[in-house]
């Protein structure tokens, strides 16, 4: 369970988030949409305690994120898996090693690494690519390795920051089906995206942020016509459809 209660974050003069309250239940699949600079990244960074909120409370499970000490932050992050648009794999490690790396960091035994990594690679559909280096894999395969790395430690939440941004539509769909499968196993998925067609077709809960505020939170479509962002223009606000 992730809960934001009246969370506000300012950057000097700019608004990051303003009085945001939202609750994401365990097992939810949530799209986080909105124009660039709307506050999506701030939302994510606050959850990871990369940033501290100016006011308000963020709860992650039974942890109150703002009150965690620096020493407790790693424990918070072990409960959250992250996937980025640019994959962020280590180029000098094989797919297997990239995934194993995440397990080594949390002090897993070599035996459990040998057992679990192939399982996860097979879950993401690249069980035969374990010994390949990132530059020998396609973009979609690289993203699958990144997803495997993110979920190998069984986090409660998977955050995907524009995971399909660098992928062609077919590959992107493969990734979406994978995320859905991971969600069906019980992992909460929060996906930041600009891909209107994906959001529309998935028909999941959509949280739209603009100028640091949640302007819409319901199940359904992307909410912007033609996949364009309003960038704060008044004319576009009428198109949210609620």
């Amino acid at each position, binding site marked *: 369970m992730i809960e934001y209660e009246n969370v506000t974050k300012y950057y000097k003069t700019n608004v990051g988030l303003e009085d945001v309250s939202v609750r994401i239940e365990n097992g939810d699949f949530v799209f986080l949409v909105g124009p660039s600079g709307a506050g999506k990244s701030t939302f994510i960074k606050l959850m990871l305690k*990369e940033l501290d909120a100016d006011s308000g409370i963020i709860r992650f499970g039974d942890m109150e994120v703002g009150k965690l000490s620096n020493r407790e932050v790693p424990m918070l*992050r072990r409960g959250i898996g992250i996937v980025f648009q640019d994959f962020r794999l280590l180029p000098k490690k094989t797919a297997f090693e990239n995934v194993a*790396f995440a397990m080594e*960091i*949390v002090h897993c035994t070599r035996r459990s690494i040998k057992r679990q990594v192939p399982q996860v690679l097979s879950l993401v559909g690249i069980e035969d690519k374990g010994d390949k280096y990132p530059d020998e894999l396609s973009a979609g395969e690289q993203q699958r390795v990144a997803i495997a790395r993110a979920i190998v*430690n069984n986090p409660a939440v998977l955050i995907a920051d524009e995971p399909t941004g660098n992928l062609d539509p077919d590959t992107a769909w493969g990734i979406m089906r994978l995320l859905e499968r991971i969600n069906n196993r019980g992992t909460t998925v929060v996906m930041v995206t600009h891909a209107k067609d994906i959001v529309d077709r998935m028909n999941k809960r959509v949280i739209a942020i603009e100028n640091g505020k949640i302007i819409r939170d319901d199940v359904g479509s992307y909410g912007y016509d033609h996949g364009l962002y309003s960038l704060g223009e008044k004319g576009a606000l009428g198109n949210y459809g609620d």
Partner: protein
Amino acid sequence: MGTSFVCVLREGFKQIGRNKGMSIASVFSITAMLLILGIFFAFIVNVNVAMEAAKQDYDTVQIYLLDTTDTLMAEEMVSDLNDMPEVVEAVYIPKETALEAWKAQWGDSGYLLDSLSENPLPNAIEVNVADLEGADVVVEKAKTFSGVEDILYYKATVEKLISITSSVQIATLIMMLFLVIVSIVVVSNTIKLTVQARSREIEIMKYVGATNWFIRGPFLVGGMLIGLISAGISCGIVALIYQKVVELVGSDLLLIIGIPMVPAPFLSWNLAAIFVALGVAIGASGSIVSMRRYLDT
């Protein structure tokens, strides 16, 4: 436990290997720093020993008598001095006894003194006093005696020695401080280069939930290894130099002056302990300094 220690050590060597040039440069600069430090350390230790030797004479006042003063007059002075509350003990030392003592001090070279046609030493009274103030009173008293040639005591010498040693010590400390800071900067720059090369890895580690100490570990060990290697090299060099100096100077000259030199093995072991501690501390703080920016979460 055993395997993880080996693992950490291997990581540390890998860390150094990633940046051989800068690692060697760091080892050189820390070694140079420790060398300077070691030479000063050896010097100061010996000055301190000399000081201690001198302090033995600190509480002694020597009264040299004219040859015209006979034993009877001397004995009278001795009993007068022994009556004073400041005096622990006053002893009359005839010139023959003094010469024997001198010969004994020269040891094997003592035969040189046999060629003296007549004893050049005066008869003397040696007065042991309880403290420095007592020495002053005894000196005043001795001045009233007739038949006294000279009164000798080491107060001024010892005080001068103390002030010299303490200023040498302070100078060394200041120099050390600067050298330590320079070494930390050099090490931290070396580590910074490897940290930068691995910043992506560190970022991922942070996202996956690695603790700061887990991330720091290999870099820390790398830095400490650099310090340890430098400590080993510099300690070896200083010990060798010191050994040679003791061999050249120690046996003859210093025996005659009457001040012993600190034996080489004793000094080397103490030096090794100090160097290892200092080298490791420099390496560790250098790597922690260099990683601070990357771990600010």
